[in-house]
């Protein structure tokens, strides 16, 4: 009888642990992040300009700044982020399973992903499109001349699908050669395994810099797809968390639009402009509405800066990539970046 009792007790203990785990899963993401004291951010394994660790393990990039901005809004400390490097294959599973709180890993927003994976895309922090890179010596000047080419690409990406679409649409033959990671793909291309390398245009510029002789390679002019790269969270009905992630990006855009920068934050706090005063929480209680403090946006600007500052620092003029704002300019400058007003 004693053994049966022990068995029952053990069983009950197990059941308790499991229901405790379930209860924890029911708590809001913001509460979990606060209790943990650190934001788990799904990041790239290494894409210069977007998410890459340096030799000391300090992460930088446009996507990385997005996560730092979320941490700044919650903790007033941009360093309270744990970056979890994810391959293209592992990223959505990591988000679904709760390993990361938010995924900002140059992931394309598509209908399939948004509706069938149990995740929700929130805000596009970079509008991209897919391109091709080839060796100059190949003598190819247009993607339409790639008949019969062997093309290296990363598996499990929208790139792989657009590639098939592009060649099918233009009635061209090609052979895909797919690899699990960006590094394997690039190194195979560099070894001459493929005629062309394809990924998002921003990624092409970044990968090109990693080649031993970047000048021997050119990016072809065609952009063959729409790649809105954005942030995603679990679609579990936690609208508070979705709002925090979404409005962090919008706050950075609104700050750029209103001319609020890291440098002039102190003066901006004294500004008479009602829009600036609302953004920085001087005369609004909007932050409390999403479970944060009212100076949430001021914290983002203080620690990370507005969208323009982050862009120029990571991928723009202040970076080796030297990508122009292009479609990522503010709507008021003819671009696509448009944030709903903070009021």
């Amino acid at each position: 009888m004693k053994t049966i009792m022990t068995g029952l007790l053990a069983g009950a203990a197990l059941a308790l642990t499991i229901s405790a785990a379930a209860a924890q899963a029911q708590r809001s993401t913001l509460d979990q992040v606060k209790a943990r004291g650190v934001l788990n951010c799904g990041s790239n394994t290494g894409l210069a300009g977007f998410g890459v660790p340096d030799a000391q393990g300090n992460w930088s990039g446009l996507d990385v700044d997005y996560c730092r901005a979320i941490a700044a809004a919650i903790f007033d400390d941009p360093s309270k982020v744990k970056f979890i490097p994810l391959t293209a294959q592992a990223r959505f599973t990591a988000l679904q399973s709760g390993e990361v709180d938010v995924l900002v890993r140059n992931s394309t927003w598509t209908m399939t992903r948004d509706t069938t994976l149990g995740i929700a895309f929130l805000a596009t922090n970079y509008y991209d499109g897919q391109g091709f890179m080839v060796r100059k010596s190949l003598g190819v000047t247009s993607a339409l001349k790639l008949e019969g080419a062997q093309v290296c690409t990363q598996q499990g990406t929208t790139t792989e699908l657009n590639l098939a679409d592009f060649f099918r649409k233009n009635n061209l033959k090609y052979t895909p050669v797919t690899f699990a990671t960006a590094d394997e793909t690039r190194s195979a291309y560099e070894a001459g395994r493929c005629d062309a390398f394809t990924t998002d245009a921003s990624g092409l510029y970044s990968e090109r810099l990693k080649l031993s002789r970047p000048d021997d390679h050119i990016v072809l002019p065609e952009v063959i797809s729409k790649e809105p790269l954005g942030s995603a969270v679990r679609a579990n009905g936690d609208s508070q968390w979705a709002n925090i992630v979404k409005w962090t990006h919008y706050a950075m855009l609104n700050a750029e639009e209103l001319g609020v920068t890291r440098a002039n934050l102190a003066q901006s706090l004294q500004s008479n402009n009602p829009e600036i005063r609302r953004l920085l929480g001087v005369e609004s209680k909007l932050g409390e509405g999403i479970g944060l403090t009212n100076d949430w946006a001021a914290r983002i600007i203080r620690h990370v800066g507005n969208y323009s500052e982050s862009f120029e620092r990571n991928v723009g003029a202040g970076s080796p990539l030297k990508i122009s704002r292009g479609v990522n300019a503010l709507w008021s400058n003819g671009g696509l970046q448009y944030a709903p007003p903070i009021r």
Partner: protein
Amino acid sequence: MSMQSAPETGKASLWYDPKIRGYVYQALLIGAVVYIGYTMISNVSQNLARQRIPFGLDFWDSQAGFDINQALFPYSARSSYGDAFWVGLLNTLLVAAFGIFFATILGFLVGIARLSKNWIVAKAAMVYVEVIRNLPLLLQLLFWYKAVLEPLPRPRDSIAIPGGALLNNRGLYVPEPVFSAGAGLIGAAFLLAVFGSIAFYLWAKQQQAATGRIYPIGWLSLGALIGLPAVAYVVTGGPISFNYPAMGGLNVRGGITVYPEFIALLLGLTTYTAGFIAEVVRAGILAVSKGQWEAADSLGLPYSRTLSNVVIPQALRVIIPPLTSNYLNLTKNSSLAVVIGYPDLAQVFLGTVLNQTGRAIEIVGITMAVYLTISLLTSAFMNYYNQRMALVER
């Protein structure tokens, strides 16, 4: 005495009875397993429902939308995820079958070489075995992939191999046979030669057992296998032509392509597994008692015949069980193809399909079931073969 002790132990005996105790423990174990299984399933389904992740195999017939370079049947981006699964599975089986075939041959050669009386041959085999067995397979695969890719020329400078094949860093291009009317006769002639050889082999063995006369089975069969189709080819007026690969545009066109990923994976799996098989073979041969060698020697049998007719048949009984596990290892190791981009089951299904559909639980489950099935089937076949080879008491 027993009468007296019976009422005393009556109450306690139920618990101290090993049989009943055994039942109780087993019931507890089953209960625990069922409970854990139930919790896992209900936990997963609850979590999936809460996160609104659909569950099921409805994705199987959806259009895949991606291409795969090496497919053993017509596959395109318009095919379904189910087709992609079969492409991956067949590619796994293809590399496993070739790998097992070559690893067995190489392994037997190296294993026998290790026992050679020639010092250089024996030491060379030893060095091979020690190096291959002690380096991680992943490293060896990357090595072979680089070794295949790096020294080979660009398509424009392809190496022409006599017979019309081309070799470059995009793969080996071999002429593709094109069959026209009358080609069926050649196939029929080949089949006839195969069945004829088998019949002759059985007859010759019977004759040998009865009269002791040895027939040249190998040479006669080989002659029939090559000769009969050749005669048929000439008689029907040469109905097979070849589609030769040639440089066109950016790459070689025509012919059958053997991709460098396949070559590298096959080389890696073959040489690695052969190292283990060599040791199994060596152990098997050493397990045959020395008296058998001496008996064969005293009958005046030459070394090769002693090996093939006396020692190896007895060694096989020791060799087959560990050989089976090496075959299973090779098949499972083929999933390391992921690192060099060979489109096997793990790369296509567990990689791309999982990522495009997001159905992690279903796809991981199916993949595990497939590898398990392949392994169990291989194992069942080898057990059957082992039983046939086992010592039969007369």
